[in-house]
């Protein structure tokens, strides 16, 4: 075994261990030198991202060749017969897809923070919390154990809360953090309760073991509802979204970027519950699958409409983007709802789903990545404007394109991408969702398209208010932001353009294997259980 193979074999553990160890070392490094600490944190997250990409390359290569691609990493005894404590990490296409998003967002956030946070004190704690949060998110995405998922959910929530309240001198930040921790604690409590219900019945915590054993009893139904509702609240789905504009709007922009990853990790939980944990149930009970599918699709449409309508009314830059982010979550959920609602019994009496069901899920998963990039870029732009002008209200902005040329270009890229304008990445994923949803129900697709047009109107308003118009005397001395902030925004903008121009490259090599990993429920169970 050469060193690359050895690293690859242990990468599921290393991906979580590296930022976790880095988090505990950061305060020590910080005592030596601030610059050294910043470099150290960037290196830690750079190494984590490299490990994620290495594992992703192996998984996606195998998946596209039709080979078994799930990586299983056992902490503890390999022998299933032994009654010992054992934790499993099960990394399939979907897990690693989410891990790529989290790792990239975290890396960009720390690069951006170099200049953005330089005037703040307590940065040793700030970077420690960022690394802890990253470890938590990655743990949620890679684990194959329900209790472990809960633990990582808690790590993510607590570190997120502290980071939201980082600007403690602003009362609103503390208020937003308090709301966030209340919501997170309640959500996590119900997740724990659901895990206990499943453990009480099946004496197991492993997702594959539970998915194999689940009978859809009365208690299973309760656990299903608790898991979906708690994770949906953490993902910001309407009408449980109200914490999100507070948290996204009040946290430093670099933190908001990682918060997007944390929100999506909860959304990943919803995907895992619907397609893996209860995948067998939904694959065998058409009515249940259709009912849950329609409930999710309805919630998705309400989420989209609510997000867009509220965004149109906002005059605070970051709150406006936060509501747009709520709408974007609705698009992701719409694909999931369409996939579940499209299940039917064919002429041979087999339960199956049409091709558009798979397309909907592919579009939905593709949109997770696009949303993280597009909304993330817009938040970074909002942060850059705050950094340069100390303004957050759009009513007090104007003419900034004259002073901040690169930031303006990045905003235009983000604007077009988030509104689903061709040829940006957001268009490709939204098109997949529109076309598949149209085949389920045209009204859903029409509402989704109209909402996307409204989203464009929302960001045109922002562009006009902040960047266009005459030069305002108070912004006469405003200059373009520092290089580290421009690099972070530039990298994300470049990825948006590449994904927009080469959508099939992304869909075929990354998104489709992730969607297949979710759809092929039985192969997940067979691979994991067969290998222990």
């Amino acid at each position: 075994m050469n060193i690359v193979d050895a690293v690859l074999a242990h990468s599921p553990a290393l991906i979580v261990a590296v930022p976790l160890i880095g988090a505990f070392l950061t305060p020590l490094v910080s005592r030596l030198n601030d610059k050294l600490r910043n470099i150290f944190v960037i290196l830690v997250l750079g190494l984590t991202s490299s490990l994620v990409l290495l594992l992703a390359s192996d998984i996606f290569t195998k998946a596209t060749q039709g080979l078994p691609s799930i990586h299983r990493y056992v902490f503890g005894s390999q022998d299933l017969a032994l009654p010992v404590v054992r934790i499993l990490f099960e990394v399939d296409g979907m897990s690693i897809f989410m891990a790529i998003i989290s790792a990239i967002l975290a890396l960009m956030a720390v690069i951006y923070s170099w200049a953005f946070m330089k005037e703040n004190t307590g940065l040793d704690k700030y970077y420690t919390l960022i690394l802890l949060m990253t470890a938590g998110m990655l743990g949620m995405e890679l684990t194959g154990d329900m209790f472990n998922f809960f633990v990582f959910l808690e790590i993510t929530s607590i570190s997120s809360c502290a980071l939201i309240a980082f600007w403690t001198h602003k009362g609103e930040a503390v208020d937003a953090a308090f709301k966030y921790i209340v919501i997170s604690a309640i959500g996590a409590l119900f997740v724990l309760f659901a895990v206990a219900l499943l453990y009480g019945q099946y004496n197991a915590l492993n997702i594959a073991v539970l998915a194999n054993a689940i009978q859809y009893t009365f208690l299973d139904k309760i656990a299903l509802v608790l898991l979906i509702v708690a994770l949906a609240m953490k993902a910001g789905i309407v009408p449980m979204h109200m914490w999100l504009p507070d948290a996204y709007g009040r946290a430093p922009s670099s933190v908001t970027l990682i918060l997007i990853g944390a929100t999506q990790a909860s959304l990943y939980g919803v995907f895992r519950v619907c397609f893996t944990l209860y995948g067998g149930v939904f694959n065998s009970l058409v009515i249940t699958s259709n009912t849950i599918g329609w409930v999710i699709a309805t919630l998705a449409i309400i989420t989209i409409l609510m997000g867009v309508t509220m965004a149109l009314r906002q005059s605070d830059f970051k709150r406006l983007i936060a509501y747009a982010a709520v709408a974007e979550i609705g698009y992701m959920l719409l694909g999931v709802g369409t996939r579940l609602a499209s299940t039917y019994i064919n002429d041979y009496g087999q339960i199956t789903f049409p091709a558009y069901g798979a397309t909907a899920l592919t579009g939905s998963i593709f949109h997770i990545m696009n949303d993280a990039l597009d909304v993330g870029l817009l938040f970074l732009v909002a942060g850059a404007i705050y950094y340069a002008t100390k303004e957050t209200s759009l009513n007090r902005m104007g003419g900034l394109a004259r002073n901040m040329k690169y930031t303006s270009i990045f905003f235009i890229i983000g604007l077009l991408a988030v509104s689903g304008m061709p040829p940006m990445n957001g268009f490709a994923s939204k098109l997949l969702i529109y076309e598949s949803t149209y085949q389920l129900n045209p009204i859903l697709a029409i509402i989704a398209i109209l909402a996307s047009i409204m989203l464009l109107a929302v960001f045109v308003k922002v562009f006009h208010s902040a960047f266009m118009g005459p030069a305002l005397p108070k912004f006469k001395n405003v200059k373009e932001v520092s290089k580290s902030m421009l690099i972070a925004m530039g990298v994300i903008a470049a990825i948006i353009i590449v994904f927009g121009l080469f959508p099939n490259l992304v869909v075929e090599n990354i998104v489709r294997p992730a969607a297949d990993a979710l759809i092929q429920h039985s192969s997940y169970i067979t691979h994991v259980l067969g290998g222990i």
Partner: protein
Amino acid sequence: MFTVDTGSGFWNPIIWVSAIVIAFLIMYILRGFGKKEYKEKTGQTQVFLSGNPEYEKEQMHIKASNIYWGFTETLRWVYKVLQKMHTGDVSDYVLWFVIVMAVLFLVVGVI
């Protein structure tokens, strides 16, 4: 590499970009047929305002709250309902969580 199969259609950004480039070229050519007597920085380009006095440039920038005023005013009743929902009180956030949970319990047949 470029074409995404959407099941009932396809999406190729290169075709779209090419079409946009061609459209811009046509626009540029058409622009060439424009009036030759047009002169920049002359009276031809000055804004003509009648009636109210002209404000300073800085005062003429339309604020974000005023954009789409007609739209938001028409939908005032919708915004009234939405604003009532968004109380900012964390107890209400939890209430919505309980409501959604109750609805889902009904849907899956627990209650």
